[in-house]
């Protein structure tokens, strides 16, 4: 799949923002007054920036309001509605906190909404049977782990972040391991795609077009195997470094900033791979 910058930025930033809302809403970061306002604005800013980035992916962004109408069937619609609900609930919670009013229930509610939003985002990908690497419960688990780990780091919950970063490491490796055989395990091949497998093995002799088209650039995107290996190694190194920092050193502002920077870089790299490495079954028609 084509790794579009807008989507990578969107899932990363909004993941962090909603992760922070989930942590902050539970009252884990016990702050009030101006500090509470700063946390609130940071979470809303991240989520808002992510949502804004996602608009750049659209062909007709001016009609985005229509995307909030199909919650009965569409995960993308659910994500849109949930993200707005979360931001409204969390914004009121944080605003009231700044004014000295603590409504715990509203906090819990925004926390649940935030988790549901992250889940809905992940389900947009996990629901697609056409992309076998994504079509697994591991995808929402991984997205949730990235977001919660990032939220705990931003919310200065380094003790909990330790364990979250370990869980994230395990989930990421599991997602990659499953992904390696996902396409073959899905049972789709050039033979089932053409329905001609009963005659013999199928190979593309001539492409329907010599130039690019939407389908090939968007869904038959291929990335060099060597590059994938390098980037996966980079993610693993960053994950280990993050866990080491959290487990070995005592918390201070410098370290927290460093870990957050690491987490961001790691999330962006892994998200790029999440798209670039995933095969769409339509590529079976193109020998790609």
């Amino acid at each position, binding site marked *: 799949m084509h790794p579009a910058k807008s989507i990578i930025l969107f899932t990363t930033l909004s993941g962090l923002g909603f992760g922070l809302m989930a942590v902050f809403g539970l009252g884990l970061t016990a702050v009030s007054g101006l500090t509470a306002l700063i946390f609130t604005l940071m979470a809303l800013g991240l989520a808002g920036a992510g949502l804004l980035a996602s608009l750049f992916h659209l062909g007709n962004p001016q009609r985005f309001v229509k995307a909030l109408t*199909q919650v009965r*069937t569409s995960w993308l619609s659910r994500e849109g509605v949930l993200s707005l609900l979360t931001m409204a609930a969390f914004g009121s919670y944080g605003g009231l906190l700044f004014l000295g009013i603590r409504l715990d229930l509203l906090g819990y509610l925004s926390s649940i909404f935030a988790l549901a939003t992250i889940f809905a985002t992940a389900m947009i990908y996990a629901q697609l049977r056409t992309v076998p690497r994504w079509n697994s419960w591991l995808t929402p688990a991984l997205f949730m782990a990235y977001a919660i780990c990032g939220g705990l780091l931003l919310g200065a919950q380094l003790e909990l972040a330790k364990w979250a970063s370990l869980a994230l490491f395990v989930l990421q490796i599991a997602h990659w391991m499953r992904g390696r055989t996902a396409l073959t395990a899905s049972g789709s091949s050039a033979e089932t795609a053409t329905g001609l497998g009963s005659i013999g093995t199928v190979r593309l002799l001539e492409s329907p077009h010599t130039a690019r088209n939407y389908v090939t650039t968007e869904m038959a995107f291929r990335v060099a195997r060597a590059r994938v290996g390098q980037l996966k190694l980079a993610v693993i190194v960053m994950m280990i470094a993050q866990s080491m920092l959290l487990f070995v050193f005592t918390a201070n502002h410098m370290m927290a900033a460093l870990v957050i920077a690491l987490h961001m870089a790691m999330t962006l790299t892994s998200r790029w791979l999440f798209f670039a490495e995933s095969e769409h079954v339509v590529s079976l028609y193109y020998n790609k």
Partner: protein
Amino acid sequence: MTSLPTQTERRLGLAIDLDTCVGCHACVISCKEWNTSQYGAPLSDTDPYGSDPGGTFLNRVHSFEITPKSAPPQVVHFPRSCLHCEDAPCVTVCPTGASYKRVEDGIVLVNESDCIGCGLCAWACPYGAREMDAVAGVMKKCTLCVDRIYNENLPEEDREPSCVRTCPAGARHFGDYADPDSNVSKLSAERGGIELMPELGTKPVNRYLPPRPRDQIDLLAPLLDVAPSNPTGVLGWVERMMERL
């Protein structure tokens, strides 16, 4: 609404004969011609005469080489377009309700004034049947020429999809799969019509008629037999002498 109808009154679709298709791409061109000037936004081309040409098409013809276990490979031309699935995943993922499946005839369409161009339906389609138009920013797909098949301004013989009407080999057939006596239902039953990627559960309506088995008897074989005979007598002597030279 992006919920799928539980049942459609008719199941209009195509039967594509892979035995007959010669891979001329005439269906591709006639499809582009009709659909760029009728229903919805035109099918744009970007940089058509430059170094990086691209364009929107609703139909594409691949050529595949099939290699049986114990026979020479054969070439199969393979037109690929929307299969108007009964369980169309492109419809349910749509966040705006722009994608829908018609209850009356099962045609899957896009309401372009509602489409935000997010591309999720194209991701959900296993068959690459949807292409986002680079200029209009909306999703384009086969409409089964909905603006031809019911069009009373056209002569009756033209009231079928443009690709079917134009195919010089007669490899494309249009009809109602809900009617067991329709041309497409009969063809599909006779020829063992294929469903593409059935493992994905999309329940496509269109069927592909597989190439008929190739003759295994070579009519020319006896005439071209070059197996050495062992002539005797004078002829044999001449042949042995010639071999020595």
